[in-house]
C-alpha cells in the first residue's frame, strides 16, 4: 500500500507553484553551476522547463499579441506594395493627333521608351481601337457599324513601374509635349481609394500596435509578479543570507527576456502560418480583381526587429515588476 498525502490543500503547498515532492535522488549531488549568469539563466528557464502552465500560456499570449502586431504590419506593408503596384503599373494611354502616320508614331514610341520606368509599350492601331470601343459599348456597339470610316486615331499604351503617383503625373505631362501627341490619360482613382483604405488600416493598426505593445509588457510583468510572489519567501531568505541586488534581480530580467523572446518567436511562426493560410484568399482576390498581387512576408530585418521588440518588452515588464513588487 502506498502512502497517501492529503497534506497540502493547494498544489503549491508551502513551496513555489509546484507541489513539493520528496526527492531521494540517486545522483550524488545537484549541479551547482558557478557562473553567475548561468545560474540566473537556469533559474529563469526553470519554470519553462517545468512546463509551468502560466509561463507557457503567457508566452502564447505574447505570441498572439505580437502576431497581431506583426500581421498589421504585414497588411500595411502589403497594402503599400499594392498601392505602389497599382500606381506604378498604371496604364498610361497616349492618343495621337488625327493624321499622325506610323513613322511619327514610332518616333514618339521611341521617345517614350527612353523614359525611366516605362514598360509594356504597345501600339494601338485605329482598327484595334475600334474593336475595343465596340467591346466597351456592349449593346450599344451596333451603332458603330453604321460608321463609314474609322474615326479613331493611332494611340500608344504603356505601363510605368517604380513611380509614385506624382512621378507618373510628371511623366504624363512630359509625354503630352511630344510632337503629334493629342492627349495623355491615366487613371488614379483606384489608387485614391486604396489609399483611403490603407489610411484606415494604418489608423487602426497604430492604435492597436501601441496598446498591444503595452499589453505585452504588462503581461510579462504579471507573470514575473507571479514568479516573484511564488518566490517571495526565497527572496526574503536570500536577503537575510546576504544576497546582493544582482543575485536576486538578474534571474527575473532573464525570465522577462526569455518570455519576450519565446513569445516573439511564436509570433514569427504564427504570422508565417497566417501568411500561408491567407494565400488562398489572396488568390481569390487576385482572380476577382483581375490583378496579380504578390503578397510579401516580413523581411528578415523586420523579423529580427519583432524578436527584439519582444525581448525588450519582456525586460521592460520584468523591470516594472521588480520596481513594483520587489521593494528593496
Amino acid at each position, binding site marked *: 500500500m502506498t502512502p497517501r498525502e492529503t497534506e497540502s490543500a493547494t498544489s503549491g503547498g508551502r513551496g513555489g507553484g509546484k507541489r513539493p515532492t520528496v*526527492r531521494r535522488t540517486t545522483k550524488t549531488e545537484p549541479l551547482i553551476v558557478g557562473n553567475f549568469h548561468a545560474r540566473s539563466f537556469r533559474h529563469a528557464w526553470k519554470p519553462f522547463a517545468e512546463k509551468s502552465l502560466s509561463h507557457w500560456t503567457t508566452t502564447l499570449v505574447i505570441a498572439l499579441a505580437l502576431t497581431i502586431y506583426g500581421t498589421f504590419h504585414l497588411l500595411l506593408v502589403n497594402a503599400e506594395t499594392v498601392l505602389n503596384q497599382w500606381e506604378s503599373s498604371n496604364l498610361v494611354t497616349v492618343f495621337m493627333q488625327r493624321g499622325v502616320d506610323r513613322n511619327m508614331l514610332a518616333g514618339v514610341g521611341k521617345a517614350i521608351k527612353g523614359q525611366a520606368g516605362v514598360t509594356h509599350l504597345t501600339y494601338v492601331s485605329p482598327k484595334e481601337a475600334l474593336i475595343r470601343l465596340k467591346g466597351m459599348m456592349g449593346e450599344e456597339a451596333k451603332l458603330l457599324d453604321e460608321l463609314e470610316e474609322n474615326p479613331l486615331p493611332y494611340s500608344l499604351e504603356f505601363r510605368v513601374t517604380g513611380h509614385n503617383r506624382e512621378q507618373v503625373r510628371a511623366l504624363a505631362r512630359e509625354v503630352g509635349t511630344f510632337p503629334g501627341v493629342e492627349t495623355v490619360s491615366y487613371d488614379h482613382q483606384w489608387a485614391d481609394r486604396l489609399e483611403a483604405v490603407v489610411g484606415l488600416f494604418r489608423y487602426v493598426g497604430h492604435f492597436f500596435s501601441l496598446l498591444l505593445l503595452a499589453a505585452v509588457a504588462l503581461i510579462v510583468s504579471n507573470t514575473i509578479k507571479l514568479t516573484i510572489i511564488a518566490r517571495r519567501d526565497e527572496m526574503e531568505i536570500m536577503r537575510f543570507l*546576504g544576497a546582493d541586488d544582482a543575485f536576486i534581480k538578474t534571474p527575473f530580467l532573464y525570465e522577462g527576456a526569455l518570455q519576450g523572446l519565446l513569445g516573439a518567436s511564436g509570433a514569427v511562426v504564427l504570422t508565417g502560418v497566417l501568411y500561408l493560410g491567407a494565400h488562398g484568399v489572396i488568390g481569390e482576390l487576385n482572380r476577382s480583381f483581375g490583378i496579380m498581387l504578390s503578397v510579401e512576408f516580413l523581411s528578415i530585418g523586420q523579423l529580427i526587429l519583432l524578436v527584439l521588440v519582444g525581448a525588450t518588452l519582456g525586460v521592460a515588464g520584468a523591470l516594472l515588476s521588480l520596481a513594483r513588487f520587489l521593494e528593496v
Partner: protein
Amino acid sequence: MIQFHNVTLRYPTGYEAVKKVSLTLPKGSFHYLTGHSGAGKSSILKLIYRAVLPSEGAVVVEGRNVEQLTRRQLPMLRRGIGVIFQDFKLLYDRTVFENVALAMEVAGHDPGRIPGQVKRTLQNVGLGERMYYNPIALSGGEQQRVAIARATVNCPPVVIADEPTGNLDKEMGRRIIALLDALHQQGTTVLLATHDLDLAGETGHPRIEMREGSIVGIWRDGTASGSEP
C-alpha cells in the same frame, strides 16, 4: 564585536519592544539571551542583522553602525552573521542540501567547494541521511537542525540563534548547544535567545536577562551583575 548604545526600538504600532538597551558582546563571546515571551529577545537579534533599524541609539557590528551601511554593504554584514530563525525560514521547494547550499551560493563561494562543506555541516547536525529530502519531509526538530546547518555552513564570525532548541527534546537540544559551543571555541561570537533557563544554566556562559524590553541583568556563572553601561 557587537555593541548596543542606548538602543530603543519602537514598532509601527508604537510598542517599545527594546528600551534604551546598552550591551557589548566581545568578539568570540557566547551569551544566552533569556526573558519571557514578548520580552524583546527576537527584537534584539533582528537589530543585529538589521532586519529592523533602531528608533533611537546605535547598533554597532564590527565597528560599523549598521544604520549607516550602504545598499552594497548590507549584504556583506549579513554574510558575516549566521542567523537561526525562530520560524526556520527554510525553502520547501528544494532539498535540504540545496537549502544549505544556498547560503554558500549567496555568499559567492567557489562552487567546487560547496558540496563538500554542505555535507560536512549536515552530518554535524545529524542530518547526513536526510540530505536529499525536502524539508517538508522532516520533523519540526529536524527542520530546526537544517536551519542551524544553514546558519553555520559559511563559518561566519557571528552566529545568532533564536530559540534553536524550541522544537527539540532535551538530548538533541544539548547536542545543538554543544555544536554552537564548538563554533565558539573556534572563535565565533554566539548569541542564543531561549526561554529554556535550564539549558542556559548548563554551560558556563553568561546569560543576559530581559524583561519588557529592558536588560534586567547579566548572569555569569550563576551570579548576577548589573546591566552594562
